[in-house]
């Protein structure tokens, strides 16, 4: 029984059965959604916890936007609920309340008072010059980008990371091609995102001056919004109204500039239905209606 030949044959049998089992399991493992083997390095190492790290790096980018002046878990962070770097893009609903300049509060004791000389203690934004208040250095906002890139790599489903990255890339650093690449990557990961489509439309309209593509992208964003919005919970619906208003008012402005006044009027009216400030839009509607009903002036020589 214990002869070398028997042991050898047993080993061969075990090897064959191992190979067979592996060949049988491999396709199932590849098809299994929980598999980490097919993911990138972050997915393999961190699994789903990478989303938590992604959020930390997103906050880190906002901390850089404030040049290190940022509340800790022990401070009052009511004025920092929504990242200021996202709020300043104009496409995010803000949840911030309170005093953003004084979250440290009054000096508590001599150690606290003394310690405030050794860390950033003044509210500044990088795009406004940062600690030096030098507006010519507003392109220093580039410093937030590594953390946003890392955040996007860790959590590819977070739409805001792409829109914020693209906004600062094109608006302050004039890197339009890179911004477009970021948005296309975002669309590959989140194909139904109307936020990314809105930002892409802005890029085509404001940087490439390609109104045709901007119109197409924004109209697609509207269709996506109309499809997704009814399924959202009331709180999410409230947050998503701003983006609809932004898309429709941009579309209305685009049509108005192109001379398509009836379409512009329709978009302004659509925006007004959902806007938190309908009176402001009424003045735009009145102006378009006035243009629409104005008599066409013809030169006397042609009469």
């Amino acid at each position: 029984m214990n002869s070398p030949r028997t042991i050898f044959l047993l080993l061969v049998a075990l090897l064959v059965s191992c190979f067979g089992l592996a060949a049988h399991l491999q396709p199932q493992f590849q098809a299994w959604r929980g598999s980490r083997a097919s993911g990138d390095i972050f997915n393999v190492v961190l699994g789903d916890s990478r989303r938590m790290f992604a959020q930390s790096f997103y906050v880190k980018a906002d901390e850089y936007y404030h040049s290190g002046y940022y509340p800790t878990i022990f401070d009052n962070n009511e004025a920092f609920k929504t990242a200021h770097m996202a709020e300043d893009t104009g496409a995010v609903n803000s949840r911030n309340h309170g005093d953003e300049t004084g979250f440290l509060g009054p000096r508590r004791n001599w150690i606290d008072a003394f310690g405030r000389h050794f860390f950033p203690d003044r509210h500044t934004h990088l795009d406004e010059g940062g600690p030096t208040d030098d507006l010519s250095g507003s392109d220093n906002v580039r410093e937030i980008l590594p953390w946003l890139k890392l955040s996007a790599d860790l959590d590819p489903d977070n739409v805001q990371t792409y829109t914020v990255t693209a906004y600062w890339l094109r608006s302050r650093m004039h890197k339009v091609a890179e911004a477009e690449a970021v948005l296309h990557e975002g669309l590959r990961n989140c194909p139904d995102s109307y936020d990314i489509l809105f930002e892409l439309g802005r890029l085509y309209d404001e940087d490439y001056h390609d109104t045709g593509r901007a119109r197409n992208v924004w109209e697609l964003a509207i269709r996506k919004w109309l499809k997704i919005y009814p399924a959202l919970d009331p709180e999410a619906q409230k947050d998503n109204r701003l983006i609809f208003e932004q898309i429709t008012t941009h579309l209305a402005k685009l049509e108005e500039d192109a001379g398509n006044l009836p379409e512009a009027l329709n978009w302004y009216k659509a925006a007004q239905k959902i806007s938190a400030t309908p009176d402001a839009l009424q003045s735009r509607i009145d102006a378009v209606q006035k243009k629409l009903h104005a008599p066409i002036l013809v030169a006397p020589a042609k009469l």
Partner: protein
Amino acid sequence: MKNIFAVAGIVIKELYRRKDFYVLFIVTVLICLVMASVNIFNDAKIVRYLKEICLLLIWVCSLVIAVTTTARQIPAERENRTLLPLLAKPLTRPQLIFGKFLGCWLACGLALLCFYVFFGALSATREHQWPLLDYFQAATLHWFMLGIVVAMVLLGSLVFAAPSSNNTICFVVIGGILFVGRHLDQVALTLHEPFRTVVYSLYFAIPHLELFDVRDLVIHNWPLIPWLYFSLALLYALGYMAVFLVGTCLVFRRKAVN
């Protein structure tokens, strides 16, 4: 003083004979160079993330060097049976303590000098500026903070049984002070008596090492710390070093050396 400097000289020689510093320095350099080679949206001017990583590594490495070098000084002398002959010479116990402290502190200073020169060179490649006074303030505060750490670990090496337990306890205490030291008074307010008074007293009693952590000011190019407050911070550090060293001398006076 001659005796103190002689002991200190031996400790410094020990640092550059051992491999710890070289390994940590090379690891720091390699990590920073790899991070610097990452292409972020084709922009070669992005530097603050690199400064942050480099300074974080410098802080971690310097703490490791300070704690591990200091923790083994007196236990190693006792283990090698060299403590008794050393004290048989015209060398008093306080002189030995001060010599060991000075040696470890100066060794940390030399290590910091290498680290900060590398940090300055790395930043200059991207920022094209050399804010020497900012680096001087950051490095000096860092060095004085390490002075408190060295004095504290030296006291721990006489109180705790083995260097390993001393290392672990000191790392936990230092980490705790750096992370929550500044907020202990706020934490105290959320507690009931008697814990409130205990934590509040602790807040005023501990050495606030986080005061010396001015990395954010250096990373984000904030203006210099006013020199008056800078000097007061150094005095604060010297005060705590004195407290720990006197404590160490008192403990060592009654300690059996064989």
